[in-house]
């Protein structure tokens, strides 16, 4: 059985994989959103998702340790590692103390941040392509803006998870701030870009200034949406 899903929350993904396993469907392989399942006994496996250090591979030490502990590496996708263990061998949780959980989610946040920045650069080049008469550029620009939004949102959500864990660790409730700084930074990038471009309007040809303006507007919009979402 093949199911198509797009997850950018590894905790929800883990939950879903475990629901499937409880229903008698064990994940066998994954490719770009397509999850391939094969029948198993109901609740035969427990799935967990880890974030590794290498693309599409893990160190020998990781592989050996997991093997020794009865953990099977099912999927390597990007930096993500989907693992499973037989339920009869006992509970399966990857990170069992607050410190290692915090470290794990920090790593995830770092990855989302890096991807967001890379996608911003790609967005810029697609807007430019759109301006220079390449219609496909606009389509990609739209898709990439959605992706930027998704990644920035994921980074923010991970932020909240980390804040909750740190609270759990110290026992001190953090001061209630007016939301994270990321939406503000994104809006600032938009505003700043817009200002610079307006100042340089006389010197820059429309081919350059239009894409920059559009980019700035998208940034501001993304920032505002994130901020509103956070405020809820």
């Amino acid at each position, binding site marked *: 059985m093949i199911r198509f899903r797009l997850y950018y929350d590894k905790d929800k993904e883990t939950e879903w994989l475990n629901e499937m396993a409880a229903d008698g469907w064990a994940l066998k392989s994954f490719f770009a959103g397509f999850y391939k399942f094969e029948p198993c006994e109901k609740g035969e496996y427990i799935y*967990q998702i*880890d974030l590794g250090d290498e693309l599409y591979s893990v160190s020998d*030490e*990781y592989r*050996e*340790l*997991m093997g*020794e*502990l009865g*953990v099977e590496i099912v999927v390597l996708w990007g930096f993500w590692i989907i*693992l499973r263990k037989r339920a009869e061998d006992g*509970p*399966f*949780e*990857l*990170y*069992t*103390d607050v*410190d*290692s959980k915090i*470290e*794990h989610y920090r790593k995830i946040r770092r990855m989302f941040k890096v991807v967001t920045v890379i996608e911003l650069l790609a967005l810029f080049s697609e807007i430019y392509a759109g301006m220079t008469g390449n219609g496909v550029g606009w389509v990609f620009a739209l898709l990439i803006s959605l992706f930027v939004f998704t990644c920035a949102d994921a980074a923010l959500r991970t932020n909240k998870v980390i804040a909750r864990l740190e609270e759990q660790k110290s026992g001190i409730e953090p001061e209630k701030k007016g939301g994270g700084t990321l939406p503000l930074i994104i809006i600032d990038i938009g505003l700043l870009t817009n200002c610079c471009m307006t100042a340089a309007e006389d010197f820059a040809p429309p081919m350059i200034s239009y894409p920059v303006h559009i980019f700035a507007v998208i940034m501001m919009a993304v920032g505002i949406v994130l901020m509103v979402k956070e405020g809820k």
Partner: protein
Amino acid sequence: MSEKETPLTEAFFYILLSLRKPNHGYGIIQEVEHLTNGRVVLGPGTLYGALQTMQKRDWIRIYSQDTESRKKKEYMITELGKEAFEAERSRLKELLDNAKLMEEGEV
């Protein structure tokens, strides 16, 4: 793990302790579980992260590795690791010594 080196987390403390003699992954988990009467059960991710961090700090090293006989990889504490452990022990001792002050209050 990039956080400061002291105080040791419970996981680090017990992993160092169980590496006073050569031990392998599953052996470490079992020993820590035994020592804490089942209170601390290390997850694979926690254990792997700790082993990596402690190797980077030269607190532990790989003791034996035999790929041909498929023997499990064993780790062992180093002198530096023992120092880190002793530093933690004196910190804990201070806490326990000072905790005795509480008994004075009971008179």
